[in-house]
């Protein structure tokens, strides 16, 4: 009991640092989800409808990004991009890395949802004389959206848990701030 109240004391003492970290986590996540989803839809469309060379390039992109740990992506955007003249601060690097990570996952979600729609839907739309664009906007996309919403929410939730990887030395995020503050108190 004693230990628990000591813990609460520490939390209370560190409340401002923790809240600032929380705010930072939320803003990194929201930005990354927004940017990543927009980019991800484009990735998904390219994977589904792109011609062979485009599909090849985008497939390489998604497989590479999905196969790379988030921490590596964050560090790469912070340290490696600066060597080619793109200077991102820690916050920007975090958003960038997570957005890229998010886009590769959303891209696969979009591709899966579009490909899961039975071919008969496209055929029926063609048969009444719709062009591809009309078929996509009226028939395919509304169905894909319903299909991918649950998985998209999962990915978004995942994005909220990732900013702990963002460079803590410069911009303490929620978790690292808690760690540092508890160290400072003890």
């Amino acid at each position, binding site marked *: 009991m004693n230990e628990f109240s000591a813990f609460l004391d520490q939390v209370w003492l560190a409340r401002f640092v923790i809240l600032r970290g929380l705010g930072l986590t939320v803003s990194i996540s929201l930005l990354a989800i927004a940017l990543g989803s927009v980019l991800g839809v484009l990735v998904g469309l390219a994977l589904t409808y792109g011609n062979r060379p485009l599909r090849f390039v985008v497939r390489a992109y998604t497989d590479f990004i999905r196969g790379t740990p988030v921490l590596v992506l964050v560090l790469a955007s912070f340290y490696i991009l600066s060597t080619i003249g793109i200077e991102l601060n820690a916050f920007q690097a975090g958003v960038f890395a997570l957005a890229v990570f998010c886009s590769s996952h959303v891209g696969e979600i979009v591709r899966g949802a579009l490909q899961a729609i039975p071919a*008969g*839907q496209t055929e*029926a739309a*063609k*048969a*009444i*004389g719709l062009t591809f664009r*009309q078929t996509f906007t*009226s*028939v395919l996309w509304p169905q894909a959206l319903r299909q991918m919403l649950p998985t998209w929410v999962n990915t978004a939730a995942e994005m909220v848990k990732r900013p702990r990887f963002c460079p803590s030395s410069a911009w303490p995020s929620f978790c690292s701030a808690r760690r540092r503050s508890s160290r400072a108190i003890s």
Partner: protein
Amino acid sequence: MTKNLLEIQALRKRYGSVEVLKGVDCTMQQGEVISIIGSSGSGKTTMLRCINMLEDFQGGRILIDGEPIGYEERNGVRVRKSEKEIARQRALTGMAFQQFNLFPHMTAASNVMLGLIKVKKMARDEARSVAEKWLDRVGLGQRADHYPGQLSGGQQQRVAIARAIAMNPRLMLFDEVTSALDPELVGEVLQVIKDLAADGMSMLLVTHEMRFAFEVSSRVIFMNQGVIGEEGDPKVMFLKPQTERLAEFLKTSSFA
């Protein structure tokens, strides 16, 4: 001589190395109801799908009202028409599918209205009243605001027919429209098709319902291994088949 509504000349279609249609010739006049019968793999569905370019074809020509479908000659080379042009030509025909293929996220009325609004550029109110008229005609006026998932198979197929026919096509294509239905639901769909035939709609039906083909058709085509095996009046075809292959097919079919 009356102008042909549909003219198929030496139609050839292959999937990879398998030739499915090996030179099909066929003409059809306005108001005719033609049933296409034959065993599976004989090419009857493929032929139907070529007519509205759901399948590309490699040889021959298909003409609707004298207008070549899907391909044109440019400097002596056969080229596929633009997607936009093909979309326009697809609207010349209406098609009903074995699996209905209604859009599940739209009500029955919206399913019918989509083509009217997007392709025919009708105003929403006008499209709605056309949709209601056709849903009434197939006996589903009361179901206009139901989603496909709330309708029985027979009702879904009737909505799908209304969706195709509301576009006012020159020719209706029916691709085994009763094959996916429970036996007790087949009758209501066939009745809708009979009513359309009575109205003078030109129709091409791929079907396994021999009794129905016998009753409704003005002509029957028997497809056999990618060519037309026999064609003619249903009474002759079903009662006095001229080829051995057709006699054999009819023996194994449900026609009795």
